[in-house]
């Protein structure tokens, strides 16, 4: 079976006044029908890697790769027309903040329906029925009422579920979620993750979960890639994150305060220049 995603030696750089800045430097991985976590700090290149899979980088970004393929199809050679058939329909992207990602002047139902009708030739009535079903699937209690609300009228947690509904309605094969729960309260976060978990399991989708939260990723995903300064420094089973061997991963884990223990001081990460290359 072809893997959903094949990435080999992905590089992304930006031209600056002082020469080119390499944001992603030789990232390689493959993804099957699984939950893959990408963790790292701000600036580690994790979000750019996610965007590159949809070819959604700014024109200034220079992208190169030995291979960048989705379901066997070469994304580097894909025309804008090919890409439009993939984006949303086969790979979709859930962003961090529903306040900015949703269209403020369209009702929730209209924008979810639009996502469906862009990729499927159906009547408005059918799209509406499908939208209501989808809202129910993301556990919105009163779909008929929420359908006609505007984004500013819903809470953060509900906004995030609406965005997930919009991304799932075209029934993609791969969902890329970039910090999908960072803006949410912990209890709401749990509920949103449970929805993602169920949908991935039931529909056999692939999921790339991009986050800075190590514990969350370890408890939610199957496999983890740890990124540092544009490179993957460690790859492990999520259940074995506590046994990580790279000093960067170990340093991150040690710097987290824990509820159970009392320490006078938290371990501070000392960055070793060797991590940039080793």
């Amino acid at each position, binding site marked *: 079976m072809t893997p959903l995603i094949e990435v080999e030696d992905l590089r992304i750089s930006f031209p600056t006044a002082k020469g080119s800045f390499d944001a992603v430097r030789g990232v390689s991985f493959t993804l099957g029908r699984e939950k893959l976590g990408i963790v790292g*700090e*701000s600036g580690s290149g994790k979000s750019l890697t996610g965007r590159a899979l949809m070819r959604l980088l700014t024109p200034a970004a220079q992208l190169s790769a030995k291979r960048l393929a989705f379901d066997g199809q070469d994304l580097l050679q894909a025309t804008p027309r090919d890409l439009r058939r993939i984006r949303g329909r086969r790979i979709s992207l859930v962003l961090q903040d529903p306040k900015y990602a949703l269209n403020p002047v369209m009702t929730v139902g209209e924008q979810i329906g639009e996502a469906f009708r862009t990729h499927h030739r159906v009547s408005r009535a059918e799209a509406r029925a499908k939208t209501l079903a989808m809202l129910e699937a993301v556990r919105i209690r009163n779909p008929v009422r929420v359908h006609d609300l505007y984004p500013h009228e819903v809470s953060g947690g509900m906004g995030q579920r609406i965005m997930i509904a919009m991304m799932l309605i075209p029934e993609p094969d791969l969902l890329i979620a970039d910090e999908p729960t960072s803006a949410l309260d*912990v209890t709401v976060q*749990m509920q949103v993750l449970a929805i993602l978990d169920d949908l991935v399991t039931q529909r056999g989708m692939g999921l790339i979960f991009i986050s800075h939260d190590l*514990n969350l990723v*370890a408890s*939610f995903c199957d496999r983890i890639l740890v990124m540092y300064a544009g490179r993957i420094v460690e790859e492990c089973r999520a259940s074995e994150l506590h046994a990580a061997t790279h000093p960067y991963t170990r340093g991150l884990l040690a710097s987290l*305060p824990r509820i*159970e223990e009392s320490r006078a001081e938290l371990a*501070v990460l000392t960055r070793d220049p060797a991590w940039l290359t080793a």
Partner: protein
Amino acid sequence: MIDIRDLTVTFGRGTQAVAAVRGLSLHVGEGESFGLVGESGSGKSTVLRVLTGLNEKWQGSASLAGLSVARRDRRFPRLVQMVFQDPYGSLHPRHTVDHALSEPLAIHGIEDANERVSRALEQVGLGPAFRFRYPHQLSGGQRQRVAIARALMLEPKVLLLDEPTSALDVSVQAEILNLLRRLRDERGLTYLLVSHNLAVVAHMCDRLAVMNRGVVVEEMAVDTLRRQEPAEAYTRQLLLASRGYDREVARAMITYD
């Protein structure tokens, strides 16, 4: 040091009125570090805004070191200061670090500003090289250090910390939390820390109160939290959710009103 009784804060009026804080009482002793925990909308930040005078309409009584918060005078800024959540938003983008740190001194007519600014920078672990930089030339962690230095310029006794590390990476969070603990030890400061992160509160505080929808659900010593033995179901659910994803826990979640 901090004494709040029957605090009620209402926003809006008539049928639109929302009570953000409903009859809250709490007491924080001198030199103590007290945590206020809760989800968004629980009213925890509103309590801090009342104490700093950023929110002027409230009922009840609130005092700091025996001074009523309602009658604000010039002594207040020298008694209490606040550090905000977002270091990208809380520093003036067109003021240098030097400008941000010397402004409170100028307002309060304090001499030897030059000396004090360089000492403050040193204390938060920033060298003299940072003194004439603008916020955009600093990382998030460095900005938060500047914000902490600014809060300490008038040598207050109380620091109000509103989610001081939630916008930072975990490695930077550790540095800032260590800095805050060191400063408290050195200066005998009283902290009132607002956070949604139970681990941060467990690390930083002696006691804490858990808030939900404007009321204190439960108040406890930090050891009770460490032993995972809170009395209220709401707190237990919050604790479980903080431990990471668990399918069964997620299924069993309830909404508490």
